[in-house]
């Protein structure tokens, strides 16, 4: 106990002296939440649109109103040639081009279908898919309206299938609700894995680790003494992230906050043991940093942080299952947005426990070997 206490005192003194790192650990959750929460919006609206209306009729105006009313298209340019449409899209001034043929009115009178060309800049796939989906439904809605008007049927009687959509857990599609728990997980991964790995590798580089292992200090005491201070840091970051989430983004916490804190410990432990494992492989702080980044990228891409896991090919889906962040995101979104209780989260807890046991076992084995 005396040894463990001395080690903890030392860790806290060093942490206190390293103001920059400490400030980074506090500022990172705040800065990243604000950036991701405000800047990222996967529901892309108000795309700049260029229109070439060859019909210039009441019908074409009505159709264009349908497009703008959806809020997805902002008509910024009205041009009078195909070349001008191309030019606007190529230059990036417009993301969408709508071309209405000259025979629109005539076709409508004779109930003939008219091709309305919608050109979408798909180099940005997120905004392209929004535009495509909306353009299609605008077309269908407008066609339906016209047909019904011709047959003299009122719009409300027309829908035989009345599909009522309820978006559970996030009715208003607020991206921040989805992002904030995700960013919390990402921040914890980045700090915990990297700082833990660096903390041990730094001692190896300066030779103090060698000095420690010739003292009676036990390997498990060293591990505990190194891990405890970072558990505290982890909780500090999680708390800051939650406060920012609630105060700035009105994030609702629908489940038990106690459960959220309790289960966060499994993820912090999983990240820290991963850091210890990295430290047992890396010889220099530079290597430790690079290895940590090697973990971050798949964590961001495969965990379901931004990209839905259900859409991934089997191999990548399986790779995602090896990452602790995948489970933690399910826990976070489950508790925060869905109000899940622990009964629905045993699977994730179990996965994290297995991860901790495996990495810690491997790290201790590798660690005692590298001392040789």
């Amino acid at each position, binding site marked *: 106990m*005396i040894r463990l206490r*001395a080690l903890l005192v*030392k860790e806290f003194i*060093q942490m206190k002296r390293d103001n920059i790192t400490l400030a980074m650990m506090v500022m990172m959750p705040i800065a990243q939440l604000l950036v991701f929460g405000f800047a990222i919006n996967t529901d892309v609206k108000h795309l700049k649109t260029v229109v070439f209306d060859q019909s210039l009729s009441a019908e074409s105006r009505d159709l264009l109103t349908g497009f703008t009313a959806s809020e997805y298209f902002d008509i910024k340019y009205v041009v009078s040639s195909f070349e001008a449409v191309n030019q606007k899209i190529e230059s990036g001034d417009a993301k969408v081009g709508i071309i209405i043929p000259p025979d629109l009115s005539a076709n409508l009178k004779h109930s003939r279908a008219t091709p309305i060309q919608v050109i979408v800049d798909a180099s940005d796939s997120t905004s392209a898919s929004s535009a495509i989906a909306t353009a299609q439904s605008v077309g269908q809605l407008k066609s339906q309206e016209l047909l019904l008007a011709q047959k003299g049927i009122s719009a409300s009687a027309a829908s035989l299938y009345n599909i009522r959509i309820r978006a559970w857990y996030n009715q208003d599609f607020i991206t921040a609700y989805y992002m904030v728990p995700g960013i919390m997980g990402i921040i914890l991964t980045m700090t915990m894995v990297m700082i833990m790995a660096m903390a041990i590798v730094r001692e190896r580089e300066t*030779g103090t680790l*060698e*000095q420690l*292992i*010739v003292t*009676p200090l036990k390997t498990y005491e060293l591990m505990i003494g190194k891990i405890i201070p970072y558990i505290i840091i982890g909780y500090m970051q999680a708390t800051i992230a939650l406060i920012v989430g609630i105060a700035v983004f009105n994030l609702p916490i629908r489940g038990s906050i106690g459960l959220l804190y309790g289960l966060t410990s499994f993820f912090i432990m999983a990240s820290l043991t991963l850091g210890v494992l990295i430290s047992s492989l890396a010889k220099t702080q530079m290597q430790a940093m690079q290895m940590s980044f090697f973990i971050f990228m798949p964590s961001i891409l495969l965990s379901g942080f931004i990209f839905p896991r259900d859409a991934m090919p089997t191999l990548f889906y399986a790779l995602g299952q090896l990452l602790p962040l995948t489970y933690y995101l399910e826990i976070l979104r489950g508790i925060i947005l869905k109000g899940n209780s622990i009964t629905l989260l045993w699977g994730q807890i179990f996965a994290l426990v297995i991860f901790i046991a495996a990495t810690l076992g491997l790290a201790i084995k590798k660690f005692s070997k590298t001392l040789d």
Partner: protein
Amino acid sequence: MTLAIDTQNLTCRFGDFTAVDKINLKIKEGNIYGFLGPNGSGKSTTIRMLCGILTPTSGTGQVLGFDILQEQEEIKKHIGYMSQKFSLYADMTVRENLEFYAGMYSLTGQIKKERMQEMLHMANLEMKENSLTATLSGGIKQRLALGCAILHRPKMLFLDEPTGGVDPKSRRLFWEIIYNLAAQGTTILVTTHFMDEAEHCDAVGFIYAGKLVATGTTGELKASISGKLLSLKSEDSLALLAQIQQAEIPYEDAYIFGKDLHILMADKHLTRLQNWPYEIIAPTMEDVFVHYIKFQTKEVTK
């Protein structure tokens, strides 16, 4: 007299490379033992095995009567270790470093207070107690590292190249502390490649390519050289050496020392040097070391 360190065919191999080859090291209790050899000759590897942090490939040994294969934990409690890197925490003060290592050896209360005061006094650091270690000079860092290594009054002290990068005055102060420790009964194993430091030791061992090639007191080792060491005064030592080579006078070794030429030569050939005025001088440890290394190299290449 009891032995503080006793090894039997201690061997350590890393893959195909034999770092330490069947070393039988015997160090008497209370002695200062100098472990001499070039870089990479196996000094540090031997120390790591003796400290119980590296498992030997074969062979065994006892430190303070504890078996290095079985009783590593006991060994760790009773030894002190200081490396060339002066393993201190640069971002902590002198006092904080001492407190930390006191904690590592489970010192508490009055004993901890006394020992820390004693170390501050010994290292002449009383005024620098609250300075950050990073701001200290090499010599002070060295004494602080030593203080951290002997806070718990170890009976056996390992010093791995303790005087690298330290000014001569600090080196002398350091050796005074070492003498004091030895006088109080601490056994000390010190590695160095400063041959003059070997003169400070009660006994010396030469290690080369993982083998212990010679061991004994400095006097014994100096006497063990076959032949005499001669010093020849000359304005142009290189030309002089060329003349001797031309005369086909066999010698063991020759090197330029200041303005003089030093030649090691078997007694029977001394008469052939009558054309040149020479005086017989006592060999330094450096001469002895070079002699043994040459001897060893010949054996290895054979």
